[in-house]
């Protein structure tokens, strides 16, 4: 039973990542793209966590921690870049 649920959850999260990628490509402004990038980071963390829980591989949780950290730092860096102003 859990295998079917796991596949459905992974497909749902993949569709969510694809929708966020649509916003990342379409986004009319740079903060829209930053929001989409932040959401993609969180979704990738949740994908890795679900995959680790489904396959009993404990090491994926460490990778999830690292990816969450890098996504946060990237978001803050992009926001600082927008706030300081940039050449068009």
């Amino acid at each position, binding site marked *: *039973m*859990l295998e079917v*649920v*796991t596949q*459905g*959850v992974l497909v*749902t*999260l993949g*569709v*969510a*990542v694809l*929708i*966020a990628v*649509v*916003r990342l490509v379409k986004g*009319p*402004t*740079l*903060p*829209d793209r*930053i*929001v*989409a990038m*932040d*959401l993609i980071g*969180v*979704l990738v*963390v*949740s994908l890795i*966590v*679900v995959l*680790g*829980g*489904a396959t*009993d591989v*404990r090491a994926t*949780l*460490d990778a*999830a*921690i690292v990816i*969450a*950290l890098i996504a*946060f730092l990237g*978001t*803050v860096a992009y*926001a*600082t870049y*927008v*706030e300081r*102003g*940039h050449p*068009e």
Partner: protein
Amino acid sequence: MIDILTAILWVAGSAFALLAAVGVLRMPDVFTRMQASTKASTLGVGCLLLGTALQLGDFGSVIRVLSIGGFLLLTTPVAAHVIARASYLADGRCGRGPCSTSGGPMAAVRTRRGRRCRSRNNRSGGASRRPQVCRARGVTAGAATVVRA
């Protein structure tokens, strides 16, 4: 029993994550998009992490899952605040450039563009580095229009 609880938590978490993505796609403005993304994705990731902690069960995995959850709960509002602040401030400076917000329910906020722009220039003292950013906005917008045309 644990499998059933895990399945319920995972389905709920993935549904919230999908709702966050749909909100980011469908909302009309940067601030509303950020609202949808932040709240729904935090709840979704919390549900998924609880399900994984139930499924794995041992002490080290639960500690790691709780640390991921605490880290995301701490950093997601900070990231949202930083994006909102950057977008709100850059909106007064860039005119119709790529970092301005366009349309949506926050359009009334942009009427205070000039005042915020002047106060920002006075505060940062960067007039020598970026001279007359506010006054050159019309020229920049005109040049951008020419380039786009």
